[in-house]
């Protein structure tokens, strides 16, 4: 098998996962070079791999396919390798091998999911991702991050088990483990759908994301923002394109989180909510399912990974140098961190889909697709969400961090590797926005779409600028909701408080049943049984002997009989007599 792998090149997933094992052995510059080389190697292997199924591994009766390369998987492969390079560069100075190894295993898992050709391979890499990503949160080593990581892995175990159960049922029903279109039809497909929906953070299964991502390490959040949800987008686009339910779930997903984002105080939690909002656009595109919509979804995933990572990097850089991440603690940082501020604003402009920034050339395809299909309500919801995302991710994040009130913090720019990583991502956001042709060229379907028409540019600018006007007027008039240190309840309430309720219920009632049983069976019944087995025969003997003694006029010694039975020292004569009496009794009773 090994020679076979070497002859045909190595799957990108294994380059990452096996490469990760060597990281703890290396030191200094060699280590840095090695870590940066792995994503480059994966990228090159991908470019050189022709379309088709590669890297078959026989396992039991199944043929596992580690490399199904087609246009759809290739785009995701490219962006996952690219963002790994940027994220690794950003995390280069982190002196914690656990994070590095977990980061590569996580990215490798995402690549494995992308190129999986069958459902078993998909499941294996899916779980590698879940486990490895948990370490990105655990590595923060605070009490709240440990708790968040615990909740995170529980939710993903639930999602993973749904997926596994669905896969097993699906194979049972169809006899095929092929990873391709499934469509909502019967319990097997529903289980698979729910499994993917957990990772895609589709409401109401979304709260793990805004719960866990802000608790991750500075660099871990960058990895997290890229892989879990976007690999779920890929799998969803593969298995459930054109599912009408997804249109509505997606539209809901774009609209609901922005209300939370407006109220949220933690900058990285604001970004987490806007991440859910952006994935909503992609889910909507998958649901619409036309060529334009799928192209829009894939290109939006591509752009989104870059600008969301850029935003998480700039927020992370602020957290790294100031130790603070709440709106209420920050402000005025542009004075000493102008570069980070600039990068953050480029990310903000991209996520807001400003013309000349990457979000503009991708998101508009999805909205246009909704328009072409005459989905009135969905189109209105998506436009509303577009204006809303500019409001919180586009204005609020840079404004409260770098401008707003002067917090008095005079922090320096982050280390050079972080600046370069942010610079590369910012450059790509601009490059794709200005010149989308290379991105359009690698999309799954031929692109017949012009993002830069006068009507479109002016329409989008009006939507955004008048949204900004609303922000301005509300801030100046004091009507903007103040930033507050608070928790905003989300659907995780059901398992966070609900979990406690169940625990208390179990504690109160099951322990009561337990105590009752303990009293009844362990304490009282055994004593009764013990007493019965000790004294029963003696009592029975006395029951028979007392009338006999009475008839014979004798006065028997009761204590002696009790003692004799308890010590099992009964004279053989008595035993024989008792046995005879029993037999006589039995015969009479018959």
């Amino acid at each position, binding site marked *: 098998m090994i020679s076979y792998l070497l002859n045909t090149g190595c799957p990108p997933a294994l380059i990452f996962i096996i490469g990760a094992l060597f990281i703890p052995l290396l030191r200094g510059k060699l280590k840095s070079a090695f870590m940066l080389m792995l994503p480059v190697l994966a990228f090159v292997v991908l470019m050189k791999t022709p379309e088709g199924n590669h890297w078959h591994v026989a396992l039991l009766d199944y043929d596992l396919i580690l490399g199904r390369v087609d246009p759809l998987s290739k785009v995701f492969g490219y962006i996952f390798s690219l963002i790994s390079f940027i994220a690794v560069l950003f995390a280069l100075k982190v002196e914690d091998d656990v994070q590095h190894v977990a980061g590569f295993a996580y990215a490798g898992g995402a690549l494995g999911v992308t190129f999986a050709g069958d459902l078993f391979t998909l499941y294996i890499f899916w779980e590698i991702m879940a486990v490895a990503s948990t370490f990105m949160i655990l590595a923060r080593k605070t009490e709240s991050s440990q708790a968040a990581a615990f909740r995170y892995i529980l939710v993903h175990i639930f999602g993973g088990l749904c997926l596994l159960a669905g896969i097993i049922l699906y194979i049972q029903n169809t006899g095929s483990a092929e990873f391709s279109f499934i469509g909502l039809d019967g319990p097997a497909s529903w289980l698979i759908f729910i499994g993917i929906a957990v990772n895609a953070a589709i409401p109401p299964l979304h709260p793990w994301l805004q719960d866990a991502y802000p608790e991750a390490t500075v660099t871990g959040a960058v990895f997290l923002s890229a892989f879990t949800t976007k690999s779920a987008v890929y799998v969803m686009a593969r298995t459930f394109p054109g599912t009408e339910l997804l249109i509505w779930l997606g539209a809901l997903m774009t609209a609901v989180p922005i209300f939370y984002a407006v109220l949220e105080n933690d900058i990285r939690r604001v970004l987490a909510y806007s991440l859910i909002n952006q994935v909503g656009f992609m889910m909507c595109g998958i649901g619409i399912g036309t060529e334009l919509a799928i192209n829009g979804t894939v290109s939006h995933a591509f752009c989104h990974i870059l600008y969301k990572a850029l935003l998480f990097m700039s927020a992370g850089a602020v957290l790294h140098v100031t130790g603070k991440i709440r709106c209420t603690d920050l402000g005025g940082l542009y004075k000493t961190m102008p570069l980070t501020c600039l990068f953050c604003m480029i990310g903000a402009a991209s996520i807001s889909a400003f013309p000349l920034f990457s979000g503009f050339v991708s998101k508009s395809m999805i909205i246009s697709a909704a328009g072409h299909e005459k989905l009135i309500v969905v189109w209105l919801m998506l436009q509303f969400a577009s204006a809303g995302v500019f409001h919180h991710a586009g204005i609020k994040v840079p404004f409260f961090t770098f401008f707003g009130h002067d917090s008095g913090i005079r922090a320096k720019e982050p280390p050079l590797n972080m600046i370069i990583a942010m610079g590369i991502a910012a450059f790509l956001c601009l490059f794709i926005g200005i010149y989308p042709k290379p991105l359009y060229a690698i999309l799954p379907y031929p692109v017949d779409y012009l993002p830069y*028409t006068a*009507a479109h540019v002016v329409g989008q600018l009006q*939507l*955004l600028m008048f949204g900004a006007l609303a922000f301005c007027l509300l801030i100046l008039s004091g009507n*903007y909701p103040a930033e*507050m240190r*608070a928790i905003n309840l989300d659907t995780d309430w059901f398992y966070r408080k609900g979990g406690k309720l169940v625990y208390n219920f179990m504690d109160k009632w099951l322990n009561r049943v337990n105590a009752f049983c303990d009293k009844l069976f362990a304490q009282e019944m055994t004593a009764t049984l013990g007493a019965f087995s000790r004294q029963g025969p003696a009592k029975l003997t006395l029951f028979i002997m007392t009338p006999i003694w009475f008839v014979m006029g004798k006065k028997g010694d009761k204590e002696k009989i009790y003692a004799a039975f308890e010590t099992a020292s009964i004279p053989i004569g008595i035993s024989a007599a008792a046995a005879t009496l029993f037999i006589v009794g039995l015969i009479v009773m018959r």
Partner: protein
Amino acid sequence: MKKELKTFDDPKNVKILLRIFYASLVVLLIVDLFIHKHADFPWEDAPNFFAAYGFVSCVLLIFIAKILRRFIKKDETYYD
């Protein structure tokens, strides 16, 4: 100590910035009247539809969020 930027602390500069911003809004409103549209829905053809929609969306967003806050806001130690 590196020199600090103070551009946006000067009220004069903020005023200039706001004026540029308002001017660009007016330009957008005017330009919209002269461009050819290829709309999916009839209301997209209405003059300055997107300006109105963007503004109303954001105001609604804020006011609904404010109402929402009354129901979902809890102390930071709520889950501890």
